[in-house]
């Protein structure tokens, strides 16, 4: 199984080396591509010096457009599976084999790494306000799409060929994670979760502030509610 790890990175020169080293150590079988769209720091150079393929876009695409670039690349290069890992060090590449297992067994098309699954409670689980938001999203996804997930905002995902093709064609923009689940479900793909541990971000700020949270809430709700049915 040829695996491509897609790492979206926007001004992540400080976090990226650790992520790429960990990838090399825990997922040596996978090719790594870093999507850098308009970082003002040395993200691209850092990525290249660690042997990753750099997909460098001249203008900022947002996280959705950046992820889609990775999926387009995976499709073009004929990878069997793609794994999304944040470039900020929140995700542990140790869990990549576990995330790939359901794809390999042919029981899933999209695998989400959930920090809320498994007995091994611990690691980073975000703030109370965010957890409330996450519960709301779970409820919304179950209501509108009948899909049961515990961690809809997780950016740790593994996808098989069918999902790569789907996401290369249509991947949501702005805050894409919950909507991407709905998109997959509507297209008849199977979504499952595996337990993972996450860490708090090492350097720099998360992109979502208080006002951003409101926009997030409205945007993600609307996009899920307005999503057209299966093609």
């Amino acid at each position: 199984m040829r695996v491509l790890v897609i790492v979206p990175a926007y001004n992540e020169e400080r976090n990226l080396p650790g992520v790429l080293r960990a990838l090399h150590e825990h997922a040596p079988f996978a090719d790594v591509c870093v999507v850098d769209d308009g970082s003002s720091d040395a993200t691209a150079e850092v990525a290249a010096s660690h042997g990753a393929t750099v997909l460098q876009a001249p203008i900022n695409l947002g996280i959705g457009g950046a992820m889609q670039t990775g999926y387009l690349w995976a499709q073009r290069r004929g990878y069997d599976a793609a794994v999304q890992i944040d470039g900020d060090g929140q995700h542990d590449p140790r869990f990549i084999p576990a995330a790939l297992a359901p794809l390999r067994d042919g029981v899933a098309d999209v695998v989400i790494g959930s920090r809320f699954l498994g007995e091994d409670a611990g690691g980073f689980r975000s703030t109370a306000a965010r957890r409330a938001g996450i519960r709301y999203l779970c409820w919304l996804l179950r209501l509108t799409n009948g899909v049961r997930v515990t961690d809809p905002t997780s950016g740790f995902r593994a996808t098989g060929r069918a999902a790569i093709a789907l996401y290369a064609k249509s991947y949501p923009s702005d805050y894409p994670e919950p909507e991407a689940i709905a998109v997959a479900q509507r297209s008849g793909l199977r979504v499952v979760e595996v337990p993972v541990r996450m860490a708090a971000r090492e350097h720099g700020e998360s992109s979502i502030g208080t006002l951003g949270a409101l926009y997030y809430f409205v945007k993600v709700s609307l996009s899920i509610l307005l999503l057209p049915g299966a093609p």
Partner: protein
Amino acid sequence: MIPFRLQVAGVVVLLALLLWVLWLVRTGRVSLRESLSWVLSTVAAIVFTIHPELLAALAHALQIEVASNALFALAILYVLWNLMTLTIATSVNARKIRRLTQECAMLRAELEEQRAARSQSQPSPTGESS
């Protein structure tokens, strides 16, 4: 119903707008496609200005008491319609630009790959200059 001079002024302004749009299309600064909504809605506005009784009929049909209010309503519709067309056009453009940008990123990566492969097969830089 509309004073004659006001009517003339209205038609003149609308005609000027129409000619301007057509001229922009002719000189290639606005595509015909994007201009269509302006052309159609401006022609409609001219028809209403020349035949205000159409407006009165419309106002009557919609039970608007003062015909000029129907005019305002129409004017707002005119602006909204053209704004909406613009919004659609920008969204379409944004999607196309995103796709192009992604293509750029991938082509760049392929180019880097080719370069790296070539510099490996020709390790000595002097081999290139000879």
